[in-house]
């Protein structure tokens, strides 16, 4: 045994070998592919099948998208160009219809010289929500948020500037009344008086007064009827109005649902479950056929306002559930802490509970918004000219009769861009809130 050992040449390595590259099969593209695409035979089969699927889909879609006509006056002209260039009318997109009608799909029948107004309103909307949604936005922007609800209707519908100003003034009653009146008449009476005063102000004084003021100082924008609203502007508008108005209603409903007051709770639960139990389309039927019957004789909202009312009710039921989720997610210690500070119910809600609950609910609110925004397409069924409704009108034009995929592809793409970016944002927010909490 030992002999053999003695005869072997002794060797001790005295210098390190240079580090070697890992085998080519486990690095770079190949390694990544082996690990992620072909790790098992089954995976390999799945990968190949997927590639085939992707090829099949893209080979169908890409030529259609890119071998297309952008400039033409009618579908017939498109077809002529197809024949001339590619020898067949199949498998080519006639984007000329989008080229001609994209403004209509975006703004509906809004007067084209006034397009700056919805665009400005949209930009203001982004500025207004920024301080709520993005931590880096300056809190000074909250001023825009406060002003926005009054500016937006004015920008879109036009009319005299006095009406939004006076309506805003009504909120001053609500704000200053309880603050200064509570010493004189007691807090509850002050609240009731200021609410009543604000209601009277809005219902009976704003109208005549703004008429009077605009007679004296006629500052205003050219009025635009809501019937001229259409396209994506209408979808966004209905979505934004519904979410904006449903937020306060949702808060009240959520609190009502959580409260110990049996009757209040029953009313709130009944409302929420009723709205959540019926499809939006039936509520839109109510808007289009029944709402005028429910109102006092002689009242007449136009259909877009009626739709906004019903979609707001619809959204507030969902909003209530989102906020209830936020309330439930708050640790019980917050409620107890507020109680132990001697805060009464409303103070506790206003100063401790709601700010936190709303913050937790923001992702939920954003998803509700996405849902409502997508659901606004349903208004086409009751004859409003949202993007889908407009496709019918466009196809009724003799020039574009028979066109199909191009319009729907364009609409789907726009919806996708809007909703996808919002859902990405909501995910980002969720991640951020998570780290905040732990």
């Amino acid at each position, binding site marked *: 045994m030992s002999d053999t050992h003695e005869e072997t040449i002794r060797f001790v390595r005295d210098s390190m070998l240079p580090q070697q590259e890992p085998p080519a099969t486990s690095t770079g593209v190949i390694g990544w592919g082996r690990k992620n695409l072909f790790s098992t035979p089954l995976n390999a089969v799945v990968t190949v099948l997927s590639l085939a699927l992707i090829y099949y889909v893209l080979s169908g879609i890409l030529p259609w998208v890119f071998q297309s006509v952008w400039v033409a006056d009618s579908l017939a002209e498109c077809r002529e160009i197809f024949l001339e260039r590619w020898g067949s009318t199949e498998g080519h997109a006639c984007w000329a219809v989008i080229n001609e009608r994209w403004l209509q799909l975006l703004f509906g029948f809004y007067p084209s010289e006034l397009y700056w107004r919805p665009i400005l309103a949209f930009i203001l909307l982004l500025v207004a929500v920024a301080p709520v949604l993005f931590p880096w936005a300056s809190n000074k922007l909250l001023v825009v948020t406060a002003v926005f609800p009054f500016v937006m209707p004015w920008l879109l519908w036009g*009319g005299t500037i006095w009406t939004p100003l006076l309506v805003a003034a009504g909120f001053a009653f609500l704000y200053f009344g309880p603050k200064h009146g509570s010493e004189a008449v007691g807090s509850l009476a002050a609240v009731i008086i200021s609410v009543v005063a604000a209601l009277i102000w809005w219902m009976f004084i704003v109208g005549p007064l703004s008429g009077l003021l605009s007679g004296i100082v006629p500052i205003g924008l050219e009025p635009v009827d809501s019937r001229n609203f259409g396209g994506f502007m209408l979808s966004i508008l209905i979505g934004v109005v519904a979410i904006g108005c449903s937020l306060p209603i949702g808060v009240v409903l959520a609190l009502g649902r959580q409260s110990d007051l049996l009757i209040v709770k029953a009313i709130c639960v009944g409302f929420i479950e009723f709205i959540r139990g019926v499809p939006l389309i039936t509520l839109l039927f109510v808007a289009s056929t029944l709402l005028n019957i429910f109102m006092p004789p002689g009242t007449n909202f136009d259909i877009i306002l009626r739709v906004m009312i019903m979609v707001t009710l619809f959204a507030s039921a969902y909003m209530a559930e989102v906020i209830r989720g936020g309330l439930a997610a708050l640790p019980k210690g917050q409620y107890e802490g507020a109680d132990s500070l001697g805060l009464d119910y409303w103070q506790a809600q206003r100063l401790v509970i709601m700010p936190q609950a709303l913050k937790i609910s923001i992702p939920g609110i954003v998803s509700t918004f996405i849902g409502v925004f997508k659901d606004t397409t349903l208004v086409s069924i009751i*004859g409003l000219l949202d993007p889908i409704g407009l496709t019918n009108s466009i196809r009724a034009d003799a020039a574009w009769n*028979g066109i199909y995929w191009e319009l729907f592809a364009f609409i789907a793409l726009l919806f996708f861009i809007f909703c996808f970016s919002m859902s990405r944002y909501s995910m980002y927010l969720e991640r951020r809130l998570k780290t905040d909490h732990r």
Partner: protein
Amino acid sequence: MKKSVFLGALTVAGLAAGAAAAATVDDVKSRGKLNCGVSTGVPGFAAPDANGEWQGFDVAVCRAVAAAVLGDPTAVEFVPTTGKTRFTALASGEIDMLARNTTWTFSRDADLKFTFVGVNYYDGQGFMVPKELGVTSAKELDGATVCIQTGTTTELNLADYFRVNNISYEPVPIETNAEAQQQYLAGACDVYTTDASGLAATRATFEAPGDHVILPEIISKEPLGPLVRHGDDEWGDIVRWTLNALIAAEEYGVTSANLADLSSAPTDNPEINRLLGTEGNLGEMIGLDGDWALKAIGVAGNYGEIFEKNIGESTPIGLARGLNAQWTNGGLIYSPPFR
């Protein structure tokens, strides 16, 4: 009776509180706009163009009424309505008149309480089939799949016709003309049935119109015309006689070309004089200016001109006058005398 509503106060500008029952014409005048219900889109009859301007045969009636009442053919708010929403919109006062290929039927008049003021297009339900099927009569359609536009009288007519002739069929209900056309062209149904005018208009836009035939059977009477609410006869009269003025203008040879000449001074024809307000006070009787008919005809000419411009044989729609020719030419279009 003017009631504001709290919600309305918040949403300020769009609120249109107005009277529903009382004089529509006063409402229209004080509003300065005519609210006219049209369809969401039927080729040749009503469709918005690229600038958002509504065009079409039904639209022309709205414009004529607006011109007669307000003196301005552009003072019209077009309210697109679906088969479902049109009657409610009219009943609730949201629109002042409905000019949306709507068939005049007994129950719509008596039960739904609308007044049809006249007929601007005599239509009938027909069938279109691909030529290659070799069908020559609707009676050969046993077992066929039929595309129908829902929300109209067509589905009732169809059910009646097939039941009476004791043949079977499979209905495919479809919401809009555009969808129906797509399904028909792809062969998802053998037959497309709707008003004959719609069939002709649809066929005209096909890639190969010659491959499709419209069967000879017309299975229903579809007098299409504008309608207003029951209970406001003054307003009904205005719409009725505006339509009649357009029709009468064609009969008397008043066109947009000679309108200015004929109205500048009384002519030999007293009917024309009364129509154009150079003689008598017909305008006053319905509470409008003396030259109301002049303004109405001035928008797009007389009935015949409107027909030719929107759906006539020179347009892609290419409809012949047929039943809709003047009674003097063997058609049904007939205006009571202006006297």
